[in-house]
């Protein structure tokens, strides 16, 4: 067991880096803080790879079992204890690799991207805080520990979105992200409490044991005709949906693009937003064996969100917003794959596919964001109408971006092809409707990605103020490394490592589905090429002919407006104002009455304090006489 003692350092090191860079900010040179943070996350990356090597190859067990590398009791209650520890199992080890790799790349990239920024040290200390929290989240041994780190990633996300705190829009976006996810986390917390109340433990190993109490002994209690276990899992999924920007909590993610672009790559594309998927995967045996209804909800939300976000993505103009909606759509894919999955062996294909897609998506989506950052760095705008013809000016960005676009579109032999194929197969085996939706989304994905690609790198060059130039090496090298990941990670035999029950199985490509998927991806690319590769007004004519549908999609289906309406018009007027009135007039009023009453009465009786000693003495004497009289006549008599 002690073979994994060092795993503690994987997430403690970034915390130390956060403390050091945060405290020494301004005392040491800014570039040094970047160096500290980057080298620390580099060490964590090496340790994570070592862990993966040891777990999957050296200490290989069939099937893979969860290992508690470390566990101490943190809070001791009479009923159950809250532990703190490190849990290593296939998905947490895989997440360690993903997070440290992407985080390391983003750190290197940031040393170039943020160069000369006044908040350089602050940026790196927040980045370290985020790495620490995210790593802590994935290795949590129990729900409470996970919840703590869950909130910590929320805070670091808040801090990094609001990094440009002079910009009101960034501050508003940070607040929005925090409030929306926090609201969803409320559901998570309630879910944790319900679940642990019935299971009698917080520990994942006990909760997800297929022979455990939660799965073998169905909870009798039900609420509104639905079992309490299903409710608890839906509430937990609500927390996951908030973090993973699933409909209807997706509204914060596009706004979160106000943060620096490397932050979007790390937090809002590759790591934090997949925490919800990770959470469902973590609780998967309970979902699958204990409450299939809850898993149905996961599948529905995932499928709906992926389609919904893909449609919006086709209409946006801001390149980061397109990528944000693309992220939402891809996470919807992962959720759907979990939702349609069964438990154990070949049945668990969806689970493997979801984790596989999470893995490959982290590479190509982080790469897309880093590419977008490189473009924005060069042309100083987010809007793709003001870009074009960049392939001549930025060859390295162009090639890596193209690889990422091909990967996300699912063109073989790039990574996205393999993972997306597995998801489509899993959907096909389970539910035809979901399959068709995802198939359509695959086409939309390649369309909007290549719309972006052709619009930015081909098309007609606008009049740039100064000629765009390629980014410095510190930014290009991480992109090249990630593009290798996006190109080749698909060849990993994923079902040999990460499965729903730990037992490896063989998955192979279903060519009939694969060819159909490639076909629709190529159609999407073709349409995008036709419309956007050269400047023609065809695209605007098509959008005009679509009329209202186009406008509605462009305005993001007015979900933000619905939220504003519900909060401002309904909740504020019907709930908040009466509560505020009650607080001001009843609660405060009672206290004010006591205070003011005392003041008024003492104002009236203050004449007694005349300062005249004779008067006092006389009153004292009279008082003694009265007291004596009362004593003599009433008490002793």
């Amino acid at each position, binding site marked *: 067991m002690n073979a994994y003692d060092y795993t503690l350092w994987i997430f403690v090191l970034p915390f130390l880096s956060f403390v050091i860079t945060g405290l020494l900010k301004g005392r040491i040179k800014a570039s040094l803080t970047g160096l500290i943070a980057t080298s620390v996350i580099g060490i964590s990356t090496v340790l994570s790879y070592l862990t993966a090597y040891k777990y999957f190859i050296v200490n290989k067990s069939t099937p893979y079992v969860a290992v508690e590398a470390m566990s101490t009791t943190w809070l001791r209650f009479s009923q159950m204890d809250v532990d703190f520890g490190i849990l290593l199992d296939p998905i947490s080890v895989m997440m360690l690799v993903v997070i440290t790799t992407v985080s390391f790349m983003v750190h290197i990239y940031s040393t170039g991207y943020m160069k000369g920024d006044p908040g350089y040290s602050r940026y790196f200390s927040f980045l370290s805080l985020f790495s620490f929290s995210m790593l802590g989240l994935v290795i949590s041994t129990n729900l409470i520990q996970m919840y703590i780190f869950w909130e910590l990633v929320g805070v670091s996300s808040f801090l990094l979105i609001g990094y440009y705190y002079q910009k009101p829009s960034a501050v508003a976006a940070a607040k929005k992200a925090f409030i929306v996810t926090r609201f969803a986390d409320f559901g998570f917390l309630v879910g944790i409490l319900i679940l642990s109340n019935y299971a009698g433990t917080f520990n994942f190993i006990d909760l997800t044991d297929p022979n455990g109490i939660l799965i073998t002994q169905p909870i009798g209690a039900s609420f509104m005709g639905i079992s309490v276990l299903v409710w608890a899992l839906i509430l937990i999924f609500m927390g996951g949906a908030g973090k993973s920007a699933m409909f209807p909590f997706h509204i914060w993610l596009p706004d979160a693009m106000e943060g620096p672009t490397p932050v979007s790559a790390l937090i809002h594309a590759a790591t934090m937003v997949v925490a919800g998927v990770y959470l469902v995967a973590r609780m998967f045996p309970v979902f699958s064996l204990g409450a299939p209804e809850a898993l149905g909800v996961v599948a529905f939300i995932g499928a709906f969100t992926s389609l919904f976000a893909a449609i919006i993505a086709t209409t946006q103009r801001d390149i980061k917003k397109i990528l944000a909606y693309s992220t939402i759509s891809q996470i919807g894919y992962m959720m759907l794959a979990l939702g349609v999955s069964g438990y154990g062996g070949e049945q668990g294909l969806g689970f493997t596919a979801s984790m596989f897609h999470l893995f490959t998506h982290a590479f190509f989506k982080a790469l897309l964001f880093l590419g977008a950052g490189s473009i924005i760095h060069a042309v100083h705008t987010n809007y793709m109408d003001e870009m074009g013809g960049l392939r001549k000016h930025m060859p390295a960005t162009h090639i890596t971006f193209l690889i990422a676009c091909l990967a996300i579109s699912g063109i073989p032999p790039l990574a996205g092809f393999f993972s997306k194929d597995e998801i489509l197969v899993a959907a096909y085996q389970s539910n035809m409707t979901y399959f068709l939706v995802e198939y359509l989304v695959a086409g939309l994905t390649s369309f909007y990605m290549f719309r972006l690609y052709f619009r930015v790198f081909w098309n007609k060059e606008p009049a740039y103020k100064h000629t765009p130039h390629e980014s410095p090496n510190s930014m290009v090298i991480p992109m090249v490394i990630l593009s290798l990941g996006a190109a080749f990670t698909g060849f990993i035999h994923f079902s040999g490592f990460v499965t729903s029950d730990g037992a490896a199985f063989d998955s192979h490509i279903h060519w009939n589905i694969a060819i159909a998927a490639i076909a629709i991806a190529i159609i999407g690319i073709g349409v995008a090429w036709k419309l956007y590769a050269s400047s023609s007004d065809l695209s605007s004519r098509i959008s005009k002919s679509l009329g209202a549908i186009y406008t509605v999609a462009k305005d993001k289906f007015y979900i933000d407006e619905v939220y504003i309406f519900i909060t401002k018009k309904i909740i504020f007027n019907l709930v908040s104002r009466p509560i505020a009135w009650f607080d001001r007039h009843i609660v405060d009023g009672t206290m004010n009455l006591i205070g003011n009453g005392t003041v008024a009465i003492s104002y009236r009786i*203050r*004449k007694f*304090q*005349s*300062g*005249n*000693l*004779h008067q006092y*003495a*006389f009153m004292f*004497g009279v008082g003694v006489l009265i007291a004596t009289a009362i004593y003599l006549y009433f008490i002793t008599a």
Partner: protein
Amino acid sequence: MIEDISLTQILTVSTLMFFIGVYGFLTRKNMISMLISVEIMLNAVNINFVAVNKYLHPQALEGHFFTLFIIAIAAAEAAVAIAIFINLYRSINSIDVDDVTEMKY
């Protein structure tokens, strides 16, 4: 001698003394006169203690002890009171109790 005097007579005297003190305390404006009145009241109480001890509990000594205590404390109290009067006189040039009405609302 003292055996000829009854307890009632002694108590009458002490009561008279006490109410003389009370009257003086309430009517005098001069603080030193008021202090004297207080001393008269205290001595009335001392007489009570000693007399009651002597007549009702001849074998006990608590009344005498109490009296001695009261005499000692009254001396200390007189010292403090005189010190206050002197300071008061230095600041307002008067020891008339009606002039000292600062401590009111």
